[in-house]
Protein backbone atom coordinates (compact mmCIF):
# COMPACT_ATOMS: atom_id res chain seq x y z
CA UNK A 1 0.00 0.00 0.00
CA UNK A 2 1.22 3.43 -0.90
CA UNK A 3 1.35 6.09 1.78
CA UNK A 4 -0.35 9.30 0.63
CA UNK A 5 -0.02 11.42 3.70
CA UNK A 6 1.19 11.51 7.24
CA UNK A 7 -0.29 13.51 10.10
CA UNK A 8 0.45 13.78 13.81
CA UNK A 9 -1.80 10.86 14.65
CA UNK A 10 -2.51 8.91 11.52
CA UNK A 11 -1.06 7.77 8.23
CA UNK A 12 -3.15 7.71 5.08
CA UNK A 13 -2.70 4.90 2.57
CA UNK A 14 -4.14 4.11 -0.83
CA UNK A 15 -6.32 1.03 -0.44
CA UNK A 16 -9.07 -1.06 -2.00
CA UNK A 17 -12.20 -2.43 -0.34
CA UNK A 18 -14.18 -4.96 -2.40
CA UNK A 19 -12.77 -3.46 -5.56
CA UNK A 20 -13.65 0.10 -4.62
CA UNK A 21 -10.83 2.57 -4.29
CA UNK A 22 -10.47 3.73 -0.78
CA UNK A 23 -8.07 5.36 1.61
CA UNK A 24 -7.00 3.75 4.86
CA UNK A 25 -6.58 6.14 7.76
CA UNK A 26 -4.48 4.24 10.26
CA UNK A 27 -3.72 5.57 13.74
CA UNK A 28 -0.09 4.88 14.45
CA UNK A 29 1.43 3.57 17.63
CA UNK A 30 2.98 6.16 19.89
CA UNK A 31 5.99 4.71 21.65
CA UNK A 32 5.99 7.39 24.33
CA UNK A 33 2.66 6.28 25.81
CA UNK A 34 2.34 3.36 28.15
CA UNK A 35 0.92 0.47 26.05
CA UNK A 36 -2.57 0.20 27.57
CA UNK A 37 -3.10 3.96 27.25
CA UNK A 38 -1.86 3.85 23.65
CA UNK A 39 -4.27 1.07 22.70
CA UNK A 40 -7.14 2.80 24.40
CA UNK A 41 -6.61 6.20 22.75
CA UNK A 42 -6.17 4.73 19.28
CA UNK A 43 -9.18 2.49 19.41
CA UNK A 44 -11.47 5.06 21.03
CA UNK A 45 -10.55 7.72 18.50
CA UNK A 46 -10.87 5.38 15.55
CA UNK A 47 -14.37 4.40 16.61
CA UNK A 48 -15.36 7.94 17.46
CA UNK A 49 -14.17 9.30 14.11
CA UNK A 50 -16.13 6.67 12.18
CA UNK A 51 -19.22 7.22 14.30
CA UNK A 52 -19.18 10.97 13.82
CA UNK A 53 -18.69 10.60 10.05
CA UNK A 54 -21.70 8.31 9.90
CA UNK A 55 -23.75 10.79 11.90
CA UNK A 56 -22.69 13.63 9.59
CA UNK A 57 -23.71 11.61 6.52
CA UNK A 58 -27.04 10.70 8.05
CA UNK A 59 -27.74 14.38 8.64
CA UNK A 60 -27.04 15.23 5.03
CA UNK A 61 -23.54 16.70 5.25
CA UNK A 62 -21.10 15.99 2.44
CA UNK A 63 -18.70 13.51 3.97
CA UNK A 64 -16.96 10.54 2.32
CA UNK A 65 -18.46 7.17 3.21
CA UNK A 66 -16.91 4.98 5.85
CA UNK A 67 -16.49 1.54 4.27
CA UNK A 68 -14.95 -0.43 7.10
CA UNK A 69 -13.44 -0.09 10.54
CA UNK A 70 -10.62 -2.47 11.34
CA UNK A 71 -8.75 -2.09 14.63
CA UNK A 72 -6.96 1.23 14.49
CA UNK A 73 -7.83 1.81 10.85
CA UNK A 74 -10.79 3.27 9.00
CA UNK A 75 -11.31 2.57 5.31
CA UNK A 76 -12.95 5.57 3.69
CA UNK A 77 -14.34 6.04 0.21
CA UNK A 78 -11.63 7.68 -1.90
CA UNK A 79 -12.62 10.99 -3.39
CA UNK A 80 -11.18 12.51 -6.51
CA UNK A 81 -10.25 16.12 -5.96
CA UNK A 82 -7.95 18.66 -4.38
CA UNK A 83 -7.69 20.14 -0.94
CA UNK A 84 -8.99 23.68 -0.68
CA UNK A 85 -5.78 25.06 0.83
CA UNK A 86 -3.83 23.96 -2.24
CA UNK A 87 -6.51 25.36 -4.57
CA UNK A 88 -6.51 28.73 -2.84
CA UNK A 89 -2.95 29.44 -3.88
CA UNK A 90 -3.56 28.36 -7.46
CA UNK A 91 -7.02 29.80 -8.04
CA UNK A 92 -6.69 33.19 -6.45
CA UNK A 93 -8.06 34.77 -9.61
CA UNK A 94 -11.15 32.60 -10.01
CA UNK A 95 -13.35 34.64 -7.71
CA UNK A 96 -16.67 33.15 -8.72
CA UNK A 97 -15.46 29.60 -8.22
CA UNK A 98 -14.00 30.44 -4.80
CA UNK A 99 -17.21 32.18 -3.76
CA UNK A 100 -19.23 29.05 -4.53
CA UNK A 101 -16.80 26.82 -2.65
CA UNK A 102 -16.80 29.03 0.44
CA UNK A 103 -20.56 29.28 0.41
CA UNK A 104 -20.69 25.53 0.36
CA UNK A 105 -18.06 25.24 3.14
CA UNK A 106 -20.13 27.58 5.32
CA UNK A 107 -23.31 25.66 4.58
CA UNK A 108 -21.62 22.34 5.41
CA UNK A 109 -20.37 23.61 8.76
CA UNK A 110 -23.86 24.88 9.55
CA UNK A 111 -25.25 21.42 8.84
CA UNK A 112 -22.63 19.74 11.00
CA UNK A 113 -23.43 22.12 13.83
CA UNK A 114 -27.15 21.42 13.38
CA UNK A 115 -26.25 17.81 14.14
CA UNK A 116 -24.20 18.97 17.16
CA UNK A 117 -21.00 17.91 15.44
CA UNK A 118 -18.06 20.18 16.15
CA UNK A 119 -15.30 19.51 13.65
CA UNK A 120 -12.33 20.67 15.71
CA UNK A 121 -10.05 21.38 12.75
CA UNK A 122 -12.21 23.19 10.20
CA UNK A 123 -9.59 24.66 7.90
CA UNK A 124 -9.07 24.63 4.11
CA UNK A 125 -6.67 21.71 4.67
CA UNK A 126 -9.67 19.55 5.55
CA UNK A 127 -12.00 20.61 2.76
CA UNK A 128 -11.83 18.62 -0.44
CA UNK A 129 -13.21 19.92 -3.73
CA UNK A 130 -13.93 17.55 -6.62
CA UNK A 131 -13.24 18.51 -10.26
CA UNK A 132 -17.01 19.10 -10.61
CA UNK A 133 -16.83 21.58 -7.75
CA UNK A 134 -18.53 19.40 -5.13
CA UNK A 135 -17.35 20.26 -1.62
CA UNK A 136 -16.62 17.53 0.94
CA UNK A 137 -15.61 17.83 4.57
CA UNK A 138 -12.94 15.36 5.70
CA UNK A 139 -10.84 14.56 8.77
CA UNK A 140 -13.07 14.12 11.78
CA UNK A 141 -10.07 13.12 13.89
CA UNK A 142 -10.61 15.96 16.35
CA UNK A 143 -14.38 16.10 16.04
CA UNK A 144 -16.79 15.86 18.93
CA UNK A 145 -20.49 15.60 19.53
CA UNK A 146 -21.49 18.55 21.65
CA UNK A 147 -24.03 21.34 21.73
CA UNK A 148 -21.48 23.78 23.15
CA UNK A 149 -21.90 27.16 21.49
CA UNK A 150 -18.31 28.02 22.35
CA UNK A 151 -16.92 24.93 20.60
CA UNK A 152 -18.99 25.76 17.54
CA UNK A 153 -17.71 29.32 17.58
CA UNK A 154 -14.14 28.00 17.69
CA UNK A 155 -14.77 26.11 14.42
CA UNK A 156 -15.66 29.44 12.83
CA UNK A 157 -12.74 31.24 14.41
CA UNK A 158 -10.29 28.70 13.04
CA UNK A 159 -11.65 29.23 9.52
CA UNK A 160 -11.61 32.99 10.01
CA UNK A 161 -7.93 32.86 10.87
CA UNK A 162 -7.19 30.54 7.95
CA UNK A 163 -8.65 32.45 5.00
CA UNK A 164 -8.51 36.00 3.71
CA UNK A 165 -10.64 38.85 5.03
CA UNK A 166 -12.46 39.08 1.71
CA UNK A 167 -13.38 35.41 1.57
CA UNK A 168 -14.46 34.91 5.18
CA UNK A 169 -17.70 36.97 5.04
CA UNK A 170 -18.94 34.73 2.21
CA UNK A 171 -18.33 31.72 4.42
CA UNK A 172 -20.00 33.29 7.45
CA UNK A 173 -23.07 34.49 5.54
CA UNK A 174 -23.71 31.04 4.23
CA UNK A 175 -23.15 29.50 7.69
CA UNK A 176 -25.68 31.95 9.12
CA UNK A 177 -28.34 30.74 6.72
CA UNK A 178 -27.69 27.07 7.26
CA UNK A 179 -27.26 26.82 11.03
CA UNK A 180 -30.41 27.02 13.17
CA UNK A 181 -28.75 28.79 16.08
CA UNK A 182 -26.16 30.79 14.18
CA UNK A 183 -27.08 33.93 16.12
CA UNK A 184 -25.77 32.53 19.42
CA UNK A 185 -22.69 31.08 17.77
CA UNK A 186 -21.77 34.35 16.06
CA UNK A 187 -22.33 36.31 19.27
CA UNK A 188 -20.05 33.88 21.07
CA UNK A 189 -17.46 34.26 18.33
CA UNK A 190 -17.44 38.00 19.01
CA UNK A 191 -17.03 37.35 22.74
CA UNK A 192 -14.13 34.99 22.19
CA UNK A 193 -12.35 37.42 19.93
CA UNK A 194 -12.65 40.18 22.51
CA UNK A 195 -11.52 37.94 25.34
CA UNK A 196 -7.85 38.25 26.32
CA UNK A 197 -6.87 34.68 25.76
CA UNK A 198 -7.65 34.66 22.07
CA UNK A 199 -6.58 38.21 21.51
CA UNK A 200 -2.98 37.55 22.41
CA UNK A 201 -3.28 34.10 20.92
CA UNK A 202 -3.53 34.25 17.19
CA UNK A 203 -4.57 30.85 15.94
CA UNK A 204 -2.07 29.44 13.53
CA UNK A 205 -3.20 26.66 11.28
CA UNK A 206 -1.65 24.20 8.95
Amino acid sequence: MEKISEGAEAEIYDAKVLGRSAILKYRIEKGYRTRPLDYRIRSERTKSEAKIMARASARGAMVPKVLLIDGYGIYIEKLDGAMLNAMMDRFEKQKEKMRKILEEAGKQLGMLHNADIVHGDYTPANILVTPEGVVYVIDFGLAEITNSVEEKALDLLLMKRSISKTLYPIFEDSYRKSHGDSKSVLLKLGDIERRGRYQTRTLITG
Partner: protein
Amino acid sequence: MAVIGIESSAHTLGVGIADKGKVLANEKMMYDVGTTGIIPAKAAEQHIENIGSVIGAALSKAGMDKSGITGIGYTKGPGLGPCLRVGQLAAKTLSMELKVPIVPVNHAIGHIEVARHVSGAKDPIVLYVSGGNSQILGIINEPFRHYHVFGETFDIGVGNMLDSFARAAKLNPAWGSSVAKLAEGGKYIQMPYTVKGMDFTFTGLLTNAVKMLEANDPRDVAYSMQETAFAMLCEAIERAMLLTKKREVLLSGGVAQSKRLKEMLEIMTATHNGAVYAAPNEFNADNGAMIAIVAEKMLDTGMQKKPEDCDINQKYRADAAEIRW
Protein backbone atom coordinates in the same frame (compact mmCIF):
# COMPACT_ATOMS: atom_id res chain seq x y z
CA MET B 1 30.20 44.39 33.55
CA ALA B 2 27.71 42.28 35.48
CA VAL B 3 23.93 42.14 35.53
CA ILE B 4 22.15 41.08 38.69
CA GLY B 5 18.77 39.32 38.53
CA ILE B 6 16.28 39.00 41.37
CA GLU B 7 13.56 36.35 41.33
CA SER B 8 10.89 36.34 44.04
CA SER B 9 7.65 35.32 42.34
CA ALA B 10 6.77 32.48 44.74
CA HIS B 11 8.51 30.46 47.45
CA THR B 12 12.03 30.87 46.08
CA LEU B 13 14.08 34.00 46.59
CA GLY B 14 16.87 33.82 44.03
CA VAL B 15 19.67 36.18 43.09
CA GLY B 16 21.88 35.54 40.09
CA ILE B 17 24.67 37.41 38.39
CA ALA B 18 25.50 37.14 34.70
CA ASP B 19 28.24 38.60 32.58
CA LYS B 20 28.12 38.29 28.77
CA GLY B 21 25.86 35.28 29.06
CA LYS B 22 28.00 33.57 31.67
CA VAL B 23 26.46 32.78 35.03
CA LEU B 24 28.78 34.01 37.80
CA ALA B 25 26.44 33.31 40.71
CA ASN B 26 23.07 31.72 41.34
CA GLU B 27 22.16 31.88 45.03
CA LYS B 28 18.81 31.17 46.60
CA MET B 29 16.81 30.72 49.75
CA MET B 30 13.54 28.84 49.90
CA TYR B 31 10.44 29.40 51.96
CA ASP B 32 9.32 26.07 53.42
CA VAL B 33 5.80 25.46 52.14
CA GLY B 34 5.19 22.73 54.75
CA THR B 35 1.96 20.81 54.36
CA THR B 36 -0.25 23.87 53.95
CA GLY B 37 1.13 25.16 50.67
CA ILE B 38 2.41 28.67 50.23
CA ILE B 39 1.00 31.58 52.25
CA PRO B 40 1.96 34.61 50.13
CA ALA B 41 2.26 37.15 52.96
CA LYS B 42 4.42 34.81 55.05
CA ALA B 43 6.68 33.99 52.11
CA ALA B 44 7.02 37.69 51.30
CA GLU B 45 7.94 38.46 54.90
CA GLN B 46 10.68 35.87 54.78
CA HIS B 47 11.96 37.16 51.43
CA ILE B 48 12.22 40.66 52.91
CA GLU B 49 14.24 39.31 55.79
CA ASN B 50 16.59 37.34 53.54
CA ILE B 51 17.07 39.51 50.49
CA GLY B 52 20.07 41.39 51.81
CA SER B 53 21.97 38.25 52.65
CA VAL B 54 21.11 36.46 49.38
CA ILE B 55 22.33 39.46 47.37
CA GLY B 56 25.46 39.45 49.53
CA ALA B 57 26.01 35.74 48.93
CA ALA B 58 25.64 36.18 45.17
CA LEU B 59 28.12 39.05 45.09
CA SER B 60 30.72 37.16 47.07
CA LYS B 61 30.20 34.06 44.91
CA ALA B 62 30.86 36.21 41.85
CA GLY B 63 33.86 37.71 43.61
CA MET B 64 32.70 41.30 43.33
CA ASP B 65 31.05 44.06 45.28
CA LYS B 66 28.01 46.17 44.51
CA SER B 67 30.03 48.69 42.55
CA GLY B 68 30.64 46.08 39.85
CA ILE B 69 26.94 45.87 38.99
CA THR B 70 26.10 47.48 35.67
CA GLY B 71 22.48 46.46 35.27
CA ILE B 72 19.52 45.06 37.18
CA GLY B 73 16.64 42.77 36.34
CA TYR B 74 13.73 41.60 38.47
CA THR B 75 10.72 39.37 37.96
CA LYS B 76 7.69 41.45 36.99
CA GLY B 77 5.35 38.43 36.93
CA PRO B 78 3.50 36.17 36.77
CA GLY B 79 3.52 35.28 40.44
CA LEU B 80 2.18 36.20 43.86
CA GLY B 81 1.77 39.94 44.44
CA PRO B 82 3.38 40.24 47.87
CA CYS B 83 6.34 38.09 46.81
CA LEU B 84 6.89 39.89 43.50
CA ARG B 85 6.82 43.21 45.34
CA VAL B 86 9.90 42.23 47.40
CA GLY B 87 12.11 41.73 44.35
CA GLN B 88 10.70 44.77 42.58
CA LEU B 89 11.43 47.10 45.50
CA ALA B 90 14.92 45.70 46.06
CA ALA B 91 15.72 46.09 42.35
CA LYS B 92 14.46 49.68 42.21
CA THR B 93 16.37 50.60 45.35
CA LEU B 94 19.59 49.13 43.96
CA SER B 95 19.08 50.87 40.65
CA MET B 96 18.65 54.27 42.31
CA GLU B 97 21.56 53.70 44.65
CA LEU B 98 24.00 52.48 42.00
CA LYS B 99 22.58 54.60 39.16
CA VAL B 100 22.44 51.62 36.81
CA PRO B 101 19.69 50.68 34.31
CA ILE B 102 16.83 48.40 35.38
CA VAL B 103 14.53 46.11 33.42
CA PRO B 104 11.44 44.02 34.36
CA VAL B 105 11.55 40.37 33.25
CA ASN B 106 8.80 37.84 32.60
CA HIS B 107 9.25 34.78 34.83
CA ALA B 108 8.31 32.24 32.16
CA ILE B 109 10.59 33.91 29.62
CA GLY B 110 13.32 33.64 32.25
CA HIS B 111 12.96 29.85 32.42
CA ILE B 112 12.59 29.45 28.67
CA GLU B 113 15.37 31.78 27.59
CA VAL B 114 17.91 30.51 30.11
CA ALA B 115 17.19 26.98 28.88
CA ARG B 116 17.56 28.03 25.24
CA HIS B 117 20.74 29.91 26.14
CA VAL B 118 22.50 27.08 27.99
CA SER B 119 21.22 24.15 25.90
CA GLY B 120 22.12 25.67 22.55
CA ALA B 121 18.66 25.21 21.03
CA LYS B 122 18.17 27.69 18.19
CA ASP B 123 14.54 27.95 17.20
CA PRO B 124 12.72 25.43 19.38
CA ILE B 125 9.14 24.64 20.10
CA VAL B 126 8.99 25.05 23.87
CA LEU B 127 7.21 23.00 26.50
CA TYR B 128 7.06 25.22 29.56
CA VAL B 129 5.79 23.24 32.50
CA SER B 130 5.76 24.86 35.92
CA GLY B 131 3.54 24.79 38.97
CA GLY B 132 1.04 27.40 37.89
CA ASN B 133 1.41 27.08 34.16
CA SER B 134 1.80 24.69 31.27
CA GLN B 135 2.24 26.07 27.78
CA ILE B 136 3.53 25.24 24.33
CA LEU B 137 5.31 28.18 22.73
CA GLY B 138 7.50 29.17 19.83
CA ILE B 139 8.98 32.43 18.61
CA ILE B 140 7.14 34.23 15.82
CA ASN B 141 7.93 37.69 14.47
CA GLU B 142 4.41 39.08 14.02
CA PRO B 143 3.06 41.48 15.18
CA PHE B 144 6.30 41.82 17.16
CA ARG B 145 8.95 39.22 17.96
CA HIS B 146 7.62 37.16 20.86
CA TYR B 147 6.84 33.68 22.13
CA HIS B 148 3.52 32.76 20.59
CA VAL B 149 1.41 30.40 22.70
CA PHE B 150 0.38 27.48 20.49
CA GLY B 151 -1.35 25.62 23.28
CA GLU B 152 -1.82 25.78 27.01
CA THR B 153 -3.69 24.43 29.97
CA PHE B 154 -7.30 25.53 30.29
CA ASP B 155 -7.07 25.26 34.07
CA ILE B 156 -4.18 24.34 36.38
CA GLY B 157 -0.52 23.77 35.58
CA VAL B 158 0.77 20.21 35.57
CA GLY B 159 3.04 21.06 38.52
CA ASN B 160 0.09 22.09 40.67
CA MET B 161 -1.65 18.89 39.71
CA LEU B 162 1.33 16.82 40.92
CA ASP B 163 1.63 18.86 44.13
CA SER B 164 -2.08 18.62 44.96
CA PHE B 165 -2.00 14.90 44.37
CA ALA B 166 1.10 14.53 46.55
CA ARG B 167 -0.75 16.29 49.37
CA ALA B 168 -3.86 14.15 48.95
CA ALA B 169 -1.72 11.00 48.98
CA LYS B 170 0.12 12.34 52.06
CA LEU B 171 3.50 12.27 50.32
CA ASN B 172 6.32 14.71 50.95
CA PRO B 173 4.70 17.91 49.84
CA ALA B 174 5.67 20.37 47.19
CA TRP B 175 7.34 18.30 44.60
CA GLY B 176 6.46 15.98 41.74
CA SER B 177 9.50 13.80 42.42
CA SER B 178 7.62 12.19 45.30
CA VAL B 179 4.81 11.30 42.88
CA ALA B 180 7.36 9.93 40.41
CA LYS B 181 8.84 7.76 43.12
CA LEU B 182 5.45 6.42 44.17
CA ALA B 183 4.64 5.72 40.52
CA GLU B 184 7.55 3.32 40.12
CA GLY B 185 6.22 -0.16 39.45
CA GLY B 186 2.60 1.01 39.24
CA LYS B 187 0.08 -0.43 36.79
CA TYR B 188 -2.13 1.49 34.39
CA ILE B 189 -5.72 2.30 35.38
CA GLN B 190 -7.95 4.19 32.98
CA MET B 191 -8.16 7.94 33.69
CA PRO B 192 -9.63 10.98 31.91
CA TYR B 193 -7.45 12.08 29.01
CA THR B 194 -8.28 15.51 27.57
CA VAL B 195 -6.35 17.16 24.78
CA LYS B 196 -8.02 19.59 22.40
CA GLY B 197 -5.77 20.38 19.51
CA MET B 198 -2.76 21.82 21.30
CA ASP B 199 -4.61 22.69 24.55
CA PHE B 200 -5.23 20.48 27.56
CA THR B 201 -6.86 20.36 31.01
CA PHE B 202 -5.69 18.75 34.23
CA THR B 203 -8.38 19.28 36.88
CA GLY B 204 -10.55 16.39 35.69
CA LEU B 205 -7.55 14.07 35.86
CA LEU B 206 -6.58 15.33 39.32
CA THR B 207 -10.08 14.97 40.78
CA ASN B 208 -10.34 11.49 39.37
CA ALA B 209 -6.93 10.44 40.68
CA VAL B 210 -7.60 11.76 44.18
CA LYS B 211 -10.91 9.90 44.29
CA MET B 212 -9.25 6.71 43.08
CA LEU B 213 -6.87 6.79 46.04
CA GLU B 214 -9.72 5.48 48.18
CA ALA B 215 -10.03 2.10 46.52
CA ASN B 216 -6.79 1.53 44.62
CA ASP B 217 -3.12 0.93 45.20
CA PRO B 218 -1.64 4.45 45.44
CA ARG B 219 1.27 3.31 43.25
CA ASP B 220 -1.12 2.47 40.41
CA VAL B 221 -2.94 5.77 40.81
CA ALA B 222 0.28 7.80 40.82
CA TYR B 223 1.61 5.90 37.81
CA SER B 224 -1.57 6.30 35.78
CA MET B 225 -2.02 9.98 36.58
CA GLN B 226 1.55 10.78 35.66
CA GLU B 227 1.51 8.72 32.46
CA THR B 228 -1.79 10.27 31.39
CA ALA B 229 -0.72 13.86 32.07
CA PHE B 230 2.64 13.52 30.33
CA ALA B 231 1.10 11.71 27.35
CA MET B 232 -1.31 14.64 26.96
CA LEU B 233 1.62 17.08 26.90
CA CYS B 234 3.50 14.91 24.39
CA GLU B 235 0.52 14.70 22.06
CA ALA B 236 -0.01 18.46 22.12
CA ILE B 237 3.64 19.27 21.50
CA GLU B 238 3.90 16.69 18.74
CA ARG B 239 1.08 18.47 16.95
CA ALA B 240 2.86 21.81 17.43
CA MET B 241 6.08 20.32 16.05
CA LEU B 242 4.38 19.11 12.90
CA LEU B 243 2.51 22.37 12.47
CA THR B 244 5.59 24.59 12.79
CA LYS B 245 8.02 22.08 11.25
CA LYS B 246 10.40 22.89 14.11
CA ARG B 247 12.60 19.98 15.09
CA GLU B 248 13.95 21.13 18.46
CA VAL B 249 11.81 20.65 21.56
CA LEU B 250 12.95 22.74 24.51
CA LEU B 251 11.78 21.54 27.90
CA SER B 252 11.76 24.08 30.72
CA GLY B 253 10.14 25.02 34.03
CA GLY B 254 9.96 23.11 37.30
CA VAL B 255 8.37 19.95 35.89
CA ALA B 256 11.21 19.76 33.34
CA GLN B 257 13.08 18.03 36.15
CA SER B 258 10.92 14.94 35.58
CA LYS B 259 13.00 12.16 34.04
CA ARG B 260 9.94 10.37 32.69
CA LEU B 261 8.62 13.44 30.87
CA LYS B 262 12.00 13.98 29.25
CA GLU B 263 12.21 10.33 28.24
CA MET B 264 8.74 10.43 26.65
CA LEU B 265 9.64 13.56 24.70
CA GLU B 266 12.83 11.91 23.51
CA ILE B 267 10.90 8.92 22.16
CA MET B 268 8.42 11.23 20.45
CA THR B 269 10.96 13.63 18.88
CA ALA B 270 13.11 10.74 17.63
CA THR B 271 10.27 9.64 15.34
CA HIS B 272 10.42 13.08 13.68
CA ASN B 273 14.22 13.37 13.50
CA GLY B 274 14.06 15.90 16.29
CA ALA B 275 15.75 16.24 19.64
CA VAL B 276 14.99 17.39 23.16
CA TYR B 277 16.90 20.27 24.72
CA ALA B 278 16.88 21.19 28.38
CA ALA B 279 18.88 23.10 30.94
CA PRO B 280 20.44 21.64 34.10
CA ASN B 281 17.96 21.46 36.97
CA GLU B 282 19.30 24.53 38.76
CA PHE B 283 17.70 26.60 35.96
CA ASN B 284 14.43 24.63 35.88
CA ALA B 285 13.68 25.29 39.52
CA ASP B 286 13.03 28.98 40.21
CA ASN B 287 16.31 30.89 40.28
CA GLY B 288 17.84 34.34 39.93
CA ALA B 289 20.37 33.54 37.21
CA MET B 290 17.64 33.17 34.59
CA ILE B 291 16.44 36.69 35.37
CA ALA B 292 20.02 37.99 35.13
CA ILE B 293 20.59 36.25 31.77
CA VAL B 294 17.39 37.65 30.25
CA ALA B 295 17.91 41.08 31.82
CA GLU B 296 21.32 41.28 30.20
CA LYS B 297 19.86 40.45 26.77
CA MET B 298 17.12 43.03 27.31
CA LEU B 299 19.53 45.74 28.38
CA ASP B 300 21.82 44.96 25.44
CA THR B 301 18.89 45.51 23.07
CA GLY B 302 17.78 48.78 24.63
CA MET B 303 14.81 47.58 26.63
CA GLN B 304 15.58 49.31 29.91
CA LYS B 305 12.71 51.04 31.72
CA LYS B 306 12.43 54.15 33.83
CA PRO B 307 12.24 53.15 37.51
CA GLU B 308 8.74 54.66 37.78
CA ASP B 309 7.58 52.31 35.01
CA CYS B 310 8.95 49.26 36.78
CA ASP B 311 5.73 47.63 37.90
CA ILE B 312 4.65 44.11 38.74
CA ASN B 313 1.90 42.11 37.02
CA GLN B 314 0.67 38.95 38.74
CA LYS B 315 -0.80 37.71 35.44
CA TYR B 316 1.98 38.81 33.08
CA ARG B 317 1.67 36.49 30.09
CA ALA B 318 4.73 35.10 28.32
CA ASP B 319 3.30 36.11 24.94
CA ALA B 320 3.14 39.76 25.98
CA ALA B 321 6.92 39.97 26.37
CA GLU B 322 8.98 41.23 23.45
CA ILE B 323 12.03 39.18 22.44
CA ARG B 324 14.41 41.51 20.61
CA TRP B 325 17.43 39.28 20.38
